[in-house]
């Protein structure tokens, strides 16, 4: 209390411009060197290596030998003729879009479910979010067994009489990519749910009651009241799932290793393979540059689109 009063009194006293620095100053100006430790770490780990990475993308460096030469756009031209690379770009985009749509759709439904007055709501919140804190590589190894030919998913389908639905979920090139998407939705739908739930709980009850009195049904209330007011939650959820989907590595590595063939390879798994099993550092880093461009375009486009949507609401 006294602190606040003193601060206000200090504000009221006119201080001549030449006395604004030092102990008599009325405004704190934290010094620039507070940013130095963070900047040094950031520059060492992110900025400098990224800049070097962009340079190496135009060379044929193998990661070890000191001798390498500048090959211009050679690596990028090579990607066009490399089916593994073009497929990886396509898989990355498919996974990112599929996860964004399905994970957030499921997450929103779960959030609406546990935001009701059902008695199990608190238990369900904790339970449904739990997979999101589990190490992705660990949950992926679990699912690799569950989705195997003799795994629990096929056993369960057999037990309920759906034998014709049994699949080689990770071994069939037409299905494997969707199995990967399914595993990620299982793990992170609860994450989307928690963010939607925080958004739902910030909507005042009175608005819903007023709309109900005016005769709006449940669906109409959701579409015209809840949905627009959830705009900030949508922004965060879409951003997280798009970027997470584009950078996906752990789950693919553990579930399929990118296979069968290259059927589930993403940009991240291909970057790893090319650099560390094939020793093509230059080519691998060129793929990382492509990944950077995809992430930048997606996040910028999304940011612009959604901030327009948020403005339209307010």
């Amino acid at each position, binding site marked *: 209390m006294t*602190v*606040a009063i003193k601060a206000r009194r200090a504000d009221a006293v006119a201080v001549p411009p030449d006395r604004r620095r030092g102990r008599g100053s009325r405004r704190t100006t*934290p010094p620039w060197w507070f940013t130095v430790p963070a900047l040094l770490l950031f520059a060492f780990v992110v900025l400098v290596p990224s800049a070097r990475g962009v340079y190496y993308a135009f060379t044929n460096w193998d990661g070890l030998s000191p001798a390498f030469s500048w090959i211009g756009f050679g690596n990028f031209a090579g990607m066009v003729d490399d089916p593994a690379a073009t497929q990886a770009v396509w898989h990355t985009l498919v996974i990112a879009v599929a996860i964004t749509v399905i994970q957030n759709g499921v997450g929103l439904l779960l959030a609406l479910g546990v935001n009701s007055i*059902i008695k199990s709501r608190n238990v369900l919140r904790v339970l449904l979010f739990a997979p999101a804190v589990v*190490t992705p590589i660990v949950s992926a190894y679990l699912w690799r067994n569950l989705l195997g030919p003799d795994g629990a998913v096929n056993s369960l389908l057999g037990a309920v009489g759906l034998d014709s639905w049994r699949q080689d979920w990770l071994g069939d090139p037409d299905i494997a990519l969707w199995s990967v998407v399914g595993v990620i939705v299982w793990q992170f739908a609860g994450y989307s749910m928690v963010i939607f739930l*925080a958004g739902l709980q910030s909507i005042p009850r009175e608005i819903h009651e007023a709309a109900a009195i005016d005769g709006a049904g449940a669906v109409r209330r959701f579409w015209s009241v809840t949905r627009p007011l959830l705009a900030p939650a949508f922004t965060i959820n879409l951003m997280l799932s798009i970027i997470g989907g584009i950078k996906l590595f752990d789950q693919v590595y553990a579930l399929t290793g990118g296979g069968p063939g290259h059927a589930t390879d993403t940009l991240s798994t291909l970057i790893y393979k090319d650099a560390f099993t094939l020793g093509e550092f230059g080519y691998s880093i060129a793929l990382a540059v492509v990944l950077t461009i995809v992430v930048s375009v997606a996040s910028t486009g999304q940011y612009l689109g959604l901030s327009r949507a948020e403005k339209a609401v307010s």
Partner: protein
Amino acid sequence: MNRYRARTLTLELVMIAVGVVFAFPVYVLVNLAIRQPSDTSSPIAPTTSPTFDNFTQAWEQGALGGALANSVLVTTGSVVVILAVSALAAYPLARVAARWSRWTFLLIMLGLVLPFQLAALPLYQTMRDLGLLGTPWALILFYSGLQVPFTTFLYVGFLRAVPRDFEDAALIDGCTTLQGFRYVVLPMLKPVTVTALVLNAVAVWNDFFTPLLYLSGGSQQTLPVAIAGFVGQYVSDWNLIFAALVISIVPILVVYFALQRSIINGFAGGLKG
């Protein structure tokens, strides 16, 4: 509007069914982890003669104790550095309107877009030259830089909404700027620090790609890499693998259930902050 009706009961039953579907993999995980290798019945049938041998065997053969200690060291060390340097940097970035401050903030925010795969390979070479490859210090250094943009972003957003009167008062009362930061600003940052702590700790603890790169071949693995190595070694010995998976999940779930409120609020905190 708030009465429990027949429709509410229907919703309750549907949601419980969904919860059971979500929990089903965990049932199979535990069910197979306590099963003897000779038992070849269906994975969904309850195990009739449970054993704990898989756990002791996985713990010893996977060297999971050492990996657990490494994960704790890396996570604690990284999170302490990340929070300290980011909070310190966020203070002038949120309070000073000068051009250098705005440009520095933008420069750091660039890190939100750059995927770490781009930096990871050239940095691998630097770490090798410094002799850090294969040691936990490589990881602590890496995360301390990698997580700066996101954490600084959280702190700056929060600080801009906090009135500066208290800091000004502390200065008038004779504090240095550093003391003002330590005794006045930091305590006010507690809510966003909980969010940053939870999100960073989970991200560092669960990361697999970086330790796979920087620790491969060494003897000091973190838990995710030790698990991956274990799976590679015992390819189809699923009872043993599942026991190892259970061992790696238990510490996370214990912390999660003990601190569920703070953790869930931490994840949702990006929205409010």
